[in-house]
């Protein structure tokens, strides 16, 4: 079973869409010119991430079966589905976080970001993760000050100009709607913030390195409703600058914040369409059963 409402082939990158991070090459070798078969049909948004027949294994058990999915630039894409359906696994494939787990492997299929296969041996994983940031289910600020949390990624890149860092800290915290709450205590520990603030700090930390894509793995699962609303509003404001992929258990959340929704079940992509369509007139009976709350 493959995706239904999407073009069946990959989309070429549009040269008219420059990005701040394009100057940094993802690979150490020149990116190969890639073009999908018949890549001239024009979808609504440009495809940024092209997942092509991806199979993924944890040891001997297959977690993802032939996933085909095109994620569009500057849109919010939601992955929904019951527990264990593979949505988080797919998310973690997008910045190769699964590499950290022993015994995992991609067996067949490709993930291309701007046409570059990120599982190619020449790809610099470090560079990839700078460009595909991630926010986790449980907020995980470092046991350092708020300021150091935000500047961590920049310092890794060797940036140490104080004025420069100060500017990024303010910009990132404003971007994460946290500036007004913490501007007077940038040097106190990030662990001293409330749960919702910690999660927004993690988002600020992720956007500080100016990634192209932000992956969010159930970012509101551990938050109370008020904090959840704030993070959702934040996601809305971030869509203008970043491509966001969000995994969520909460269907209302998917309906509220996303442009496109992908429904997974048993390691397979069942349906992928505009969010409006998924929740109002799903084409697949399984999707219909899940979004209407009959299982999951």
């Amino acid at each position, binding site marked *: 079973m493959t995706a239904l409402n999407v073009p069946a082939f990959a989309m070429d990158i549009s040269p008219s869409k420059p990005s701040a991070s394009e100057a940094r090459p993802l690979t150490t070798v020149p990116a190969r010119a890639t073009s999908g078969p018949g890549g001239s049909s024009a979808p609504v948004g440009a495809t940024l991430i092209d997942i092509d027949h991806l199979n993924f294994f944890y040891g001997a058990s297959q977690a993802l079966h032939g996933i085909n999915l095109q994620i569009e630039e500057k849109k919010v894409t939601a992955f929904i589905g019951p527990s264990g359906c593979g949505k988080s696994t797919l998310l973690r494939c997008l*910045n190769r*976080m699964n590499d*950290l787990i*022993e015994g995992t492997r991609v067996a067949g299929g490709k993930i291309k970001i701007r046409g570059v296969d990120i599982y190619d041996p020449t790809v610099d994983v*470090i*560079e990839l*993760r*700078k460009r595909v*940031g*991630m926010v*986790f289910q*449980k907020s*995980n*600020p*470092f*046991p*350092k000050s708020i300021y150091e949390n935000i500047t*961590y*990624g920049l*310092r*890794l*890149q060797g940036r140490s100009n104080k004025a420069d860092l100060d500017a990024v800290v303010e910009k990132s915290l404003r971007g994460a709607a946290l500036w007004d709450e913490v501007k007077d205590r940038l040097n106190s520990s990030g*662990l001293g913030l409330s749960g919702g603030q910690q999660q927004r700090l*993690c988002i600020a*930390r*992720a956007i500080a*390195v100016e990634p192209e894509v932000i992956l969010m793995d159930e970012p509101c699962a*551990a938050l109370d409703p008020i904090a959840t609303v704030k993070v959702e509003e934040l996601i809305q404001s971030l869509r203008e600058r970043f491509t966001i992929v969000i995994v969520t258990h909460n269907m209302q959340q998917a309906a509220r914040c996303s442009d496109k929704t992908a429904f997974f079940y048993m390691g397979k992509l069942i349906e992928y369409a505009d969010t409006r369509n998924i929740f109002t007139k799903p084409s697949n009976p399984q999707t219909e059963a899940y979004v209407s709350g009959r299982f999951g």
Partner: protein
Amino acid sequence: MDAPRPAHDPEFLVNKTRVRVLGLSLDDAVKFFFGGNAFISVVVLTLITYFLFQEGFGFFGQNQRSLLTYRQAGLEYVDFIRTQESGHTALTRYISDLRLRQFNELTTVRKLDLEAANAQLAAFDEFSGQFSDGVDPLRGLLSDLTEQATAIKTKFLVAEDKKVERQQLVDAGKSVEAAAVKIDQIDFPAELKVLTGALPLYRTASAEFAAKLTAALAKAPTLSNPELATRLIRLRELTSDYIATFPATLRSLETWDYTRPVPWYQSATSFITGRQWLTASFWQDWYGIVPLFMGSLMVSLVALLIAVPFGVGAAIYINQMASAREQRIVKPCIEFISAFPSVVLGFFGIAVLGQALRLLSQQEWLAWVPGFPFSERLNILTAGCLLALIAVPTIFTLAEDALQNVPKAFKEASFALGATRLQTIIRIVVPASLSGIISAVLLGLGRVIGETMVVLLCAGNRIAIPDFTAGLAVITQPVHTMTGIIAQEMGEVVQGSIHYRALFVVGLVLFFLSLAINFLAQKIVRKYRISIG
């Protein structure tokens, strides 16, 4: 209204088949068994602590009496002169050293044969002889006074023994025999007259001594080599400084008063700041912990300097970088080190390591290393190396635990921001587990400072404060340690004697040291423990 259900309703007897042990239900029996074990361990701990304190604190009273006797019997008085005399001994050593250097110069640089060299040194030898003979009048007086003071002390001790004997007889109810025990009352002022009466003699002897030294120096030969000539000038300075101390000694002797009381705290300060641990001496025993403490400290420091990089480094590697296979092999290996009985390690230290280190130190291409070459096979370095071996498993295991406790979420977040593994380790994992690592090191220190067998066998057992003027070479000197001294001397001392109690106080010091280290380690871990989620 219904009648209440009778209590012995058969359907309600749920307790019927309970097993009972000693009249208790099984649950209660188990509870009391484990509770009893816990209680016994607390009681035993209390008893040990009580015993340690009771035996240890007796030392201070005895030490004060000992110091009082030292004063009353005039030993202190005689020691003023002895100090003066030992100053002269140091100077003659300096002169011998000078002669040796000059001799080497003559034989190696000027290529003289032995006889000719000795002939050249005749003038120097004459000077040296005059210089060292100068002390004779003082030395003669000193030896007389020493004999007299010893006699007074012996008399006093005999009287004390008699007192004890009488007391024992009284306790045994033999009052007639007790009355028969004759106790000589010591008339200290009368006895001490002999000593203080010698003051005029001392005055003349001291003056004569000073005059002889000055005369000898006036006739000192000149040395051609500029370096040795400077040394000779230095000798003049040292000697004139030395002679300048004579009036102070005289003043001490004149103002000395045997009735001056020994303040109560002096028994403690003489222990804590005492630079001598001298036992079974014919003259006066000294119980000063400083040489032992410094010994323990130096050995432990060397051990930690070696063990911390190894232990912490191995922990970081195994926890953060090694493959599962390496972990399976290396972890048990490091932990297995602690399975060696320490006496085996000590034996290894004597038979292999000490020998090997000495051999290594005598290699010519290593002569630039401070302290090399050394001749003492057993020294701080040898003991420190072996203690490091003992500390490594402790430090490794605890540091690895601390690293393991760093939440995985920190690492993931770091990787997701584009950090390499090394950056993640240095910037996130190690800082987050630093408190645990520090406490691991502290517990390693606790392990090392309490270790006995290895230091007893390998530290060299020379009771002396390490000579820090040697710089880094200090670690090639033999020392004795607090644990070593207890193990070595406890078997030979008379129970209840001051020496016996002094060893207990050393034990107490060790006890408090361990307590402090453990307390600190726990405190650090608690205070900086990171909680997430």
